[in-house]
């Protein structure tokens, strides 16, 4: 369905496209972080692409998986309401350098989603106008949706003193 998009990307960007997958009519493309903005600008502005709808932006943690090469992967889903096609962009990240250029300049809708991804996974989006937590409070330490976050770790804001009445 969106094979034309994959073909256009591979022919135009070559080495920046690390791999493409097409399964169950669900096309996705793996892009190097350095070229992300360039690829996305093309996807948004080109007349044949015309991706005008930012569907979601999130992250996946591959800790402990057999195919774990890069631990974190930022995932972006785009859709075109005029051309009726869609594409998923995956950006693999090296651990210790969790930085991705922001896409909130291209699609404003990604502003809060990037903040959420930062809040939950600790991925920083360079160039984002307001890079801080969105759900959790300032006293919260760490990133709760990472696989190595202990499930019983809490940062309480209010607790009472216990008395045996």
């Amino acid at each position, binding site marked *: 369905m969106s094979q034309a998009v994959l073909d256009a990307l591979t022919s135009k960007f070559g080495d920046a496209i690390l791999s493409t997958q097409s399964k169950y009519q669900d096309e996705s493309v793996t892009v190097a972080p350095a070229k992300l903005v360039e690829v996305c600008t093309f996807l948004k502005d080109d007349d044949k692409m015309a991706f005008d709808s930012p569907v979601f932006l999130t992250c996946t943690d591959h800790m402990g998986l057999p195919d774990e090469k890069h631990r974190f992967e930022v995932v972006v889903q785009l859709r075109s309401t005029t051309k009726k096609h869609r594409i998923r962009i995956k950006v693999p990240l090296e651990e210790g350098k969790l930085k991705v250029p922001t896409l909130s300049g291209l699609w404003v809708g990604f502003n809060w989603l990037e903040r959420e991804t930062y809040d939950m996974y600790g991925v920083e989006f360079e160039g984002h106008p307001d890079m801080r937590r969105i759900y959790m*409070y300032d006293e919260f330490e760490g990133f*709760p949706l990472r696989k190595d*976050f202990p499930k019983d770790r809490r940062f*309480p804001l*209010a607790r*009472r003193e216990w008395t045996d009445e």
Partner: protein
Amino acid sequence: MGLEITTTKLEDLANWGRKFSFFTYPFITACCGMEFMSVAAPKYDLARFGAEFPRFSPRQSDLMMVVGTITEKQGPALKRVYDQLAEPAFVIAFGVCASTGGFYQNYSVVPGIDQIIPVDVYIPGCPPRPEQVLDGIMLLQKKVAEGRTHHQVRGRREALEKREQQNEGA
């Protein structure tokens, strides 16, 4: 005409009145609220227990019903509302999320509101049946009449300590 004298402790008389006139502050955050509405509506009719009138200001209420999941971020607000209740204040934890955190064993949910405020009656269930809630209200009535809620016990203890201090001073 014979001399008829009715004697009772003033405290017991006050508690008898309190148990039939709970003014509820509904602290509703989640799906359990549907069951609370059902309990308050005519079919199950909380009015039979004198608790039919939800007040949306804690200063006009003495029974706080914590209905639904309380997150860590909400904790300070919960504490603050509890501190503003008219005394003596009673608390019911409505549903498993309020009682223990329920199935939310994670970073964001308080593992039971008794971590933050003292709770008098826990109503389990996800969500609890209205019959369970009525049972909980009746348990609370019994507890109030006997003066065994957290607030009443604390009040008596503080009065006792105050009297002891006065006796020492005298």
